[in-house]
């Protein structure tokens, strides 16, 4: 299916670039007529003779990607973009092109880590310009300011609709499987086509203020990538649905604050404290400024090594707003960025009295029986607590409930 879509876009004179997780300046690619096709694994055990070139203690995302590229499954695209997400992708970005596995053009997008600083602001801008120049070699034409401006508008609209669907989840007549399926089509569709699908889906959103159409247990999930997607079937069978999303690949990439082209540093703290603030377009001067701002304004993500307090505030805010009754932490085994945030998330949500389920995954095709049992048991526990608490929904619970730990030994999914 992806192959056909890629071919169709190429037939229109566009280039296609495979992109590794997580964050990259997508509007820039769109503006340059480049279709981004994201490579999240793909799920299942790593296939092909090159799977063994990365040790088994490297995450499945990186291992599967190498096996996939080296097996020639991505030959249809014109290049690969490696965002600087973590040590593993950083290594993959030299292993595949330099030692075999990828022979076509290769791009890297380095993203500054840690807090926003004057140096990192200046750097993002220079890095964006440098990437644009490299991509121009691939496309044979340079970036036009007007095109970038249009692309920014297009992606702002896409984000607005994604935010509407996610934030209005309780009023949306779709299963998790359908919603995630739709959102994840954005990983490979031409953005304008994705926009049309999103628009159609907003039709299934009941009016604000109307009774929720989702009556199952509202759960929040934080994690990396929603794989395996059967997770949602198991949740549904256990009587729960995802009312709030913080997957790196989904919710953490939805800019809830439209970023204009004026430098708006001074308003940053005020805005991040109110992520639900209504969209307010800003005057136009330089679209690159907006791209730079987006890099700092996105929801806090472990892979950017965002400020932890800010991330916890964001998560707790999201949890409360969505009136959730429990939190599932679903992270890839061996993923340093995600794993390092787990203790703080545990501690913070335990202090809030929120029940928590920890699942570790390796991009398997389906959840193990043990993981399914844990999801079932978690939902039984949350439902029982809710009944006893007699509370309408979520928010803070006092006292007795701690997090569901799978202990130091980690869990599985």
């Amino acid at each position, binding site marked *: 299916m992806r192959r056909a879509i890629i071919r169709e876009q190429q037939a229109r004179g566009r280039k296609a670039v495979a992109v590794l997780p997580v964050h990259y300046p997508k509007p820039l690619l769109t503006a340059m007529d480049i279709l981004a096709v994201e490579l999240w694994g793909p799920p299942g055990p790593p296939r092909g003779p090159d799977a*063994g*070139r*990365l*040790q088994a*203690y*490297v995450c499945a995302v990186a291992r599967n990607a190498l096996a996939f590229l080296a097996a020639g499954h991505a030959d249809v695209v014109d290049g690969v973009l490696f965002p*600087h997400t*973590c*040590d*593993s992708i*950083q*290594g*993959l*970005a*030299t*292993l595949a092109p*330099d*030692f*075999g596995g990828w022979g076509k053009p290769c791009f*890297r997008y*380095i993203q*500054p*880590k*840690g*807090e926003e*600083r*004057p*140096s*990192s602001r*200046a*750097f993002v801008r*220079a*890095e964006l310009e*440098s990437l644009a120049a490299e991509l121009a070699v691939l496309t044979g034409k340079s970036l036009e300011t007007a095109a970038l401006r249009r692309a920014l508008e297009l992606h702002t609209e896409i984000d607005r609709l994604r935010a509407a669907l996610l934030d209005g989840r309780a009023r949306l007549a779709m299963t998790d499987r359908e919603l995630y399926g739709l959102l994840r089509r954005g990983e490979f569709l031409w953005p304008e086509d994705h926009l049309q699908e999103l628009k159609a889906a907003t039709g299934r959103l009941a009016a604000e203020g109307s009774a929720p159409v989702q009556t199952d247990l509202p759960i929040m999930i934080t994690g990396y990538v929603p794989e395996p997607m059967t997770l949602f079937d198991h949740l549904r069978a256990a009587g729960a649905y995802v009312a709030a999303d913080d997957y790196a690949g989904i919710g953490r990439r939805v800019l809830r604050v439209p970023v204009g082209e004026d430098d708006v540093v001074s308003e940053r703290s005020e805005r991040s404290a109110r992520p639900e603030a209504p969209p307010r377009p800003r005057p136009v001067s330089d679209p690159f400024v907006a791209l730079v701002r987006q890099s700092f304004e996105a929801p806090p993500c472990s892979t950017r*090594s965002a400020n*932890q307090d800010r991330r916890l505030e964001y998560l707790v805010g999201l949890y409360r707003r969505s009136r959730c009754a429990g939190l599932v932490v679903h992270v890839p*085994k*061996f993923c*340093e*960025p995600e*794993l*390092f*945030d*787990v*203790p*703080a998330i*545990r*501690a913070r949500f335990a202090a809030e009295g929120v029940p928590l389920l*920890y699942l*570790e995954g390796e991009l398997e095709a389906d959840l193990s029986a043990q993981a399914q049992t844990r999801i079932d048991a978690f939902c039984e526990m949350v439902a029982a607590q809710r009944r006893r608490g007699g509370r309408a929904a979520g928010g803070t619970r006092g006292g007795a409930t701690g997090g569901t*730990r799978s202990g*130091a*030994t*980690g869990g599985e999914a």
Partner: protein
Amino acid sequence: MITRRVQYELIARAAGPLLMTINRWQGDLKRAVRRVTGRGPARKAAPFGPPLESTRKLKDLMTMHYLTGRYADGAVPVAWVTSGFPVEILRPSGFFTVYPENHGAVCAVRRMVPELSEAVEKQGYSRDLCAYARCDLGSVVTGKTPAGRLPRPDLLACCTNICQTVLYWYRALAEHFKVPLVLVDTPFVYGEAKPHHLQYVRDQLHELRTVAERVSGNHVAPEELEEILKVSLAGTRLWDACLKTGRTKPSPWTGFDSFIHLAPIVSMRGTEECNAYYRILLDELQDRARRGVPGIANERVRLLWDNLPIWFNLRELATLLAEHGFNFVCTTYTNAWAEAGGLIDPADPEGSATRAYIHVILNRDLPNKLRTMKRMCTEYDVQGAILHSDRSCKPYSIGQIDLKDRLAQELGIKALILEACHADQRAYASEQGEMRIRAFMESFDQATPS
């Protein structure tokens, strides 16, 4: 503050050396008792050459360093620093520096990592995270350390040129101690460093100077920084010269010795004490090389070691290899501190520090790593390599499977991949590891009829 300072100076100058003498005396006593009673680990000296005299001085130096550290907080500003951090920028402001990685190595040698790690595994830290990070955080939480006590930091200084892990780890430290964290974020170098990548690091060094001055309250004149850089450069060159004595046949020491003697260049870089020590070591090594005094008794096969050492198993591994006449004459790990630091140019402090610290081996692509390894294989004339595939350290380990094949194809080097962890013995099956090493050694004897 004043009394604390007096205490610190007193320890550093007078009481410390005295205490150390007592410690050493006690150690001698213990050893003597052991000899008499025949209990405790018997040291078979056989496979090794005469021990290095300098080792005792090294012990004194490091004991002194940790001892002084116990009294440092409150007396002088204290910074906890990653091994690849441009520490020269901090030194002129008078910071006492603590290297958690070096401390982690000490914990690992004493096999304390599982115990310390468990303390934070309970908080949800996964065992799949770097053992140095787990061990250090565990030490902070429990207050347990083989050093007696580590001084509380006023500043955390982190540079991502070795890995991203350090940033996550130091952020947790910053959260625990509620002190500022300075970051030098070094874009990974694919091929050549791009000008704006260098500029970014340079800007950060500039930001760092401001923070260092603010936290320490000491204003730094440009000459002071130049002076430190000179000292640091000299230290790097001395260390490099020490390593290069390994080119002699037989090598006057072993790679395992070099792991131990690495401590000062990692954690005291830019100080006179560090350089003074390496002058002594270099003299001894050069003298041994001249007189043909070997690191191991019967050096038959020369090897290269890649990645961090397996600290908790260092002695066993060294003995096993030495018994069969195998010697590590070079390691990419110890070499890392001899290499990039050479780019320092006191005349251009920020510019050259930028180049030096962005070009460390862990921050560069695999072709560079292969080039370095090949060069070392040739210069040190090795026949084999052990690539320690370190579960704890992904940035160092990714690519090793290809590197092994290329060393074999391009130089005919026999290589073994040994999966372990540098600090957590729970992740290493020592029996299986030993068996693999024995098989590896046997393969040489089949190939080269003696």
